[in-house]
């Protein structure tokens, strides 16, 4: 079954935060009521759209999963779908892919940017050629795309991970962050919000001691985790906002026999983390449904291609089984708040 | 072929009509050679006559294009060095083939180490055997130390030990004495004679005719890859052998032209390189050929390298034309008009893969063109001029230096340095491994250069050459000057005494007699030495 979009498992009151206002919990920008299952585009707009997805890298299970949703959407609309991209997250290579896709005259490019600025000139060139450009997952400069399908805003993602950790540790103890590459933009944005969340009253005793980088490499992430344990003997928790990092950290904690002793949370995929949730190394972790993200991104691109929307504020379109969406500030389409997985609900997901 | 009387039975090894071609070069054109048990057979010929090629054929390195190799009368195909070895043929190659970072004993036994019952290398046995072998050669070399850093002569001795360790029926030696001192040569000869008595067949390749006539039973002469003659030593004389080798009568071997000796061009005082040589001082004048004699390892090359800027010096001073100079690189040496023809032709003298022309012009390229660009026209003209002057035998200036015979390669190196129009030319073993014909030519060239006013430092291990060519002779022993002789006063005996260090205390002045040219600043006992 497909994942729900609302944030289950996290009740507002359980936060460490004691201030009432705060940047707190994400606005529940949930979709409108379920609408017609058939998409908004296809039928009224002549030829089926030819839409290309360009993820950060094609080896990441996250994007592979998202591509599954896009394919599902393509099948519903009857459009074409292809996913191309670099093997390792590289902005420069993405530029080349954008140019190649432009040459190929696809109808729309859906891109998750390794670098928000690197892609701008080439994406703008693509738009000049009449190609619809949508960003998803990781945004590009606003003027270089028509819409941004946001899985959940950075703020929500950043804060929720700290909130989970706070809850797991009873709001006190040393924690560390294990990120991906130091240059990963959305990671860095999330980490900023994590820091901000930690500034809030109530988190005084939760101390972030370091941010380390595992380069989205299993070995580096693993070794770094183990070294963290030695360097910070009082370490109580690790937040790893990357699917590679959290899996490697879990593996390392289990190998060191520290699973459950040092709490681990972050962003990850249920299938990759199921074993660790079952063994108790990870109690809770967050994510949105990447299948839905790909699905929504495809529908957004299709709507742009057939002219249903232009990316202007307030426009609405139908996104198949997800229902109707409205374009928000600066072309943003928000999938929904992040979702928290735990031992009870993880069995419901298969991606 | 003409079997020589007194050679009983069948030859152990026989080459019949073998031919070998390398690209455009026909190295061997159908030659015959038979080796009998209990004979020492000399193989002589000019550079490039094909001697080493034949040796490599026996070693299983090259296979003949035509003809066959017979062992004990039966035709065999020597597929590789291993096969040759297994058939009882041991070879000492012209250039040492050692493993610099392995120890001496391993070098001797590489590829066939003694093993213990678990198939492991039996190190103790190996060390013991090699110790014994070297002792029989009368040398003390640590068998557990690496070969790197051994003097060339010692390396050659390791090679010899290696060949001896095979207990072969046939021992082939390609110029084994080229870098040995007289005593070592004597010892080697004693062993060779002993092996002959045991019925080993020996093939001995050398350019030193006096050695050949002292040691060998029969002599085979090659010329241009063809067999010329095989005859008992008794039927030949050095003169007739040379005639067969070069195919013509030879003019004087050491044609020294009279030259007017002028002012001091190069003055050296107190030159010291710690651990290598000490307190070297001499004057070299215009038109003078200054011989520098010594046994191998005396440090002559080291002195030359320092004068050429290839090595650094720890103390001492050098003046060129009266001006003190600091020569820190070959480029500086070139600027001061010093040229150096190194003893290692292949490694240092030539870029082997470059054509003749590019080799000749390499040091002067920056002068040849304008604004850094090459001037191919001038380059060709210049290279052609020197090739012509030195009579380099080649198909053209485009021929790669690697395809030339040793003598012609040496001429190219000479041409290269002459093209720089040096004031001082240092020649390091300019005729080593060069056949008599070419040797005479080189001597003539050197002599003519001196006559035209060039100052020449002639380093040689060949005493007759030094004595005949030099106006003055310096002698080195273990890194020190042990003698200085004027042309008239230098005779074989006195020079040898100095070279072996027997003259040690005070018999000769370590510094040259003080010439008072250039203001006499440097006369008398000079404040030389370490600083």
């Amino acid at each position: 079954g497909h994942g729900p979009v609302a944030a289950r498992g996290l009740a507002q009151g359980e936060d460490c935060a004691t201030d009432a206002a705060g940047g707190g919990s994400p606005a529940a920008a949930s979709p409108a009521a379920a609408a017609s299952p058939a998409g908004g585009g296809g039928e009224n707009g002549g030829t089926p759209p030819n839409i290309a997805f360009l993820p950060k890298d094609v080896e990441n299970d996250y994007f592979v999963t998202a591509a599954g949703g896009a394919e599902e959407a393509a099948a519903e609309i009857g459009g074409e779908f292809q996913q191309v991209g670099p093997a390792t997250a590289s902005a420069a290579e993405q530029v080349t892919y954008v140019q190649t896709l432009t040459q190929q005259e696809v109808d729309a490019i859906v891109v998750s940017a390794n670098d928000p600025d690197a892609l701008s000139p080439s994406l703008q060139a693509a738009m000049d050629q009449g190609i619809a450009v949508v960003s998803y997952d990781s945004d590009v400069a606003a003027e270089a795309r028509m819409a941004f399908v946001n899985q959940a805003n950075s703020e929500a993602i950043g804060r929720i991970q700290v909130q989970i950790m706070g809850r797991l540790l009873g709001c006190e103890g040393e924690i560390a962050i294990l990120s991906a590459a130091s240059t990963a933009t959305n990671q860095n944005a999330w980490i900023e919000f994590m820091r901000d969340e930690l500034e809030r009253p109530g988190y005084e005793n939760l101390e972030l001691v370091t941010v380390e980088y595992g380069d989205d490499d299993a070995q580096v992430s693993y070794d770094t985790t183990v070294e963290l344990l030695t360097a910070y003997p009082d370490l109580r928790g690790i937040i790893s906002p990357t699917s590679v990092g959290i899996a490697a950290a879990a593996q390392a904690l289990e190998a060191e026999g520290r699973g459950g002793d040092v709490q681990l949370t972050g962003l990850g995929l249920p299938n990759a983390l199921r074993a660790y949730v079952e063994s108790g190394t990870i109690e809770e972790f967050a994510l949105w449904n990447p299948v839905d993200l790909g699905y929504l991104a495809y529908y957004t691109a299709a709507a742009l291609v057939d002219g249903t929307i232009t990316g202007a504020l307030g426009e609405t379109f139908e996104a198949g089984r997800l229902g109707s969406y409205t374009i928000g500030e600066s072309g943003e389409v928000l999938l929904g708040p992040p979702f928290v997985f735990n031992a009870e609900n993880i069995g419901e997901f298969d991606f | 072929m003409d079997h020589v009387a007194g050679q009983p039975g069948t030859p152990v090894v026989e080459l019949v009509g073998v031919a070998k071609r390398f690209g455009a070069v026909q190295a061997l054109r159908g030659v015959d050679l038979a080796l009998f048990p209990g004979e020492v057979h000399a193989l002589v010929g000019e550079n490039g006559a094909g001697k080493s090629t034949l040796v490599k054929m026996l070693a299983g390195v090259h296979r003949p294009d035509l003809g066959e190799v017979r062992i004990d009368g039966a035709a065999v195909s020597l597929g590789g060095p291993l096969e040759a070895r297994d058939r009882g043929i041991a070879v000492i190659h012209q250039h040492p083939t050692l493993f610099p970072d392995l120890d001496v004993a391993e070098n001797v036994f590489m590829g066939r180490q003694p093993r213990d019952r678990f198939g492991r290398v039996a190190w103790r046995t190996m060390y013991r055997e090699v110790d014994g072998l070297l002792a029989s050669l009368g040398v003390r070399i640590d068998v557990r130390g690496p070969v790197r850093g051994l003097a060339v002569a010692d390396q050659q001795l390791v090679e010899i030990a290696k060949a001896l360790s095979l207990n072969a029926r046939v021992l082939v030696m390609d110029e084994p004495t080229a870098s040995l001192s007289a005593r070592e040569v004597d010892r080697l000869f004693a062993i060779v004679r002993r092996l002959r008595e045991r019925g080993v067949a020996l093939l001995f390749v050398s350019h030193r005719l006096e050695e050949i006539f002292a040691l060998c039973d029969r002599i085979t002469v090659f010329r241009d890859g063809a067999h010329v003659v095989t005859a008992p030593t008794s039927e030949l004389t050095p003169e007739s052998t040379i005639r067969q080798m070069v195919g013509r009568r030879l003019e004087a071997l050491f044609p020294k032209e009279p030259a007017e000796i002028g002012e001091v061009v190069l003055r050296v005082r107190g030159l010291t390189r710690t651990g290598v040589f000490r307190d070297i001082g001499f004057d070299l004048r215009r038109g003078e050929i200054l011989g520098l004699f010594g046994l191998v390892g005396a440090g002559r090359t080291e002195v030359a390298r320092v004068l050429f800027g290839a090595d650094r010096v720890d103390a001492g001073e050098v003046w060129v034309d009266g001006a003190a100079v600091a020569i820190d690189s070959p480029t500086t040496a070139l600027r001061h008009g010093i040229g150096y023809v190194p003893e290692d032709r292949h490694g240092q003298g030539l870029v082997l893969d470059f054509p003749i022309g590019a080799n000749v012009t390499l040091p002067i390229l920056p002068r040849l063109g304008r604004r850094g660009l090459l001037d191919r026209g001038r380059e060709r003209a210049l290279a052609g001029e020197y090739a012509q002057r030195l009579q380099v035998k080649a198909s053209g200036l485009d021929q790669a230096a690697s395809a030339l015979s040793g003598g012609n390669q040496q001429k190219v190196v000479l041409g290269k340095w002459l093209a720089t129009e040096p004031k001082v030319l240092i020649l390091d073993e300019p005729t080593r491994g060069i056949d008599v014909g070419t040797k005479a030519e080189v001597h003539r060239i050197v002599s003519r250069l001196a006559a035209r006013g060039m100052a020449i430092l002639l380093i040689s291990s060949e005493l007759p050459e030094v004595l005949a060519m030099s106006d003055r002779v310096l002698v080195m022993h273990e890194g020190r000057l042990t003698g200085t002789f004027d042309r008239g006063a230098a005779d074989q005996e006195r020079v040898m005494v100095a070279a072996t260090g027997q003259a040690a205390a005070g018999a000769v002045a370590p510094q040259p007699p003080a010439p008072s040219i250039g203001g006499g600043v440097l006369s008398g006992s000079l404040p030389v030495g370490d600083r």
Partner: protein
Amino acid sequence: MTTADGAIGTGPSAGRLRADRLVGLVGRVRELGLLVALAVLVAAVTAREPRFLSLNNARTILLAVSILAVVAVGQTLVVLTRNVDLSVASIVGVTAFVAGDLFKQNPGLSVPLVVALACLLGLALGALNGALVTLGRVPAIVATLGTLYVYRGVAFWIAGGEQITVADVPQGYRDIAMTRLFGVPNPILIAAAVAVVAAYLLRTSPVGRQLYAIGGNPEAARLAGIRSDRLVFGAFAVCGLLCGLAGVLWGSRFGRIDARAASGYELQVVAAVVVGGVNIFGGVGTVLGAVLGAVVLGTVANALTILRFSPFWLQAISGLAILVAVTLDLLITRRVGRALVARRNR
């Protein structure tokens, strides 16, 4: 035969013999130097952070370098023969992925079988490198730069964006890297065993000595009747085999594997070998050195984290460590060598 009645070498005998012994020591001095450097490093870091010097942390470091050490041993064999294998990381990646994929596609497959298949795959890929170099006469650096791309490409091709997760492999497979013997994690024991066996064979077997000979002077090796091609081929094959083993350890240890596993690792491997005093031009070096090189690099990385250096400094300091190590090694070797020559000539 007669005995020597006098030395006619180049120098006085007694001094020379002693000097030559010392030359023999230089080989060992290289590793000694590295050990000293390691000790200094450990002492310096411990002075600032006592926790660094603990059994636990030693285990962490050794565990972190164990896979690197296995590959470095293989690389050493190749480098000794005056070759290099740049494709090691790709082989590790391919074998790690294929092993995981075998389990994923055929749940219930026996663990030893998969391990054997992965090692065999490594062997085959290494052998292909060897064939290109010996039969094809392609310079090793060119051939293995090519196969670096090709093998990695094959890994991507097979993977097609899929990952292997812990859920895909049986516990028995994970146990290879996860279990401990007397408190020592398996990978360390495996790496140590590989290193000890390789070191022993290199020192005592004729074939081992011949590898040195080939690298020291290929021409002379040929003249000595050594079947160089066969041995070089063998060195590449064994290196591939060890990469296969490393791939198994990799998959077993990290749980999650994608087609990028170990990419870029070749540079670390070469760095470890070089820091370990193995001459990149062949003929000189030991397995012990290479393993020590890996340990030094691992210790530096570990120390930086323990000392709470900003992670941004890590790579720069690792690079610096490589340069310092090779420079020191060179200076020491050179000084000893010069002293010896001077002595010999006295």
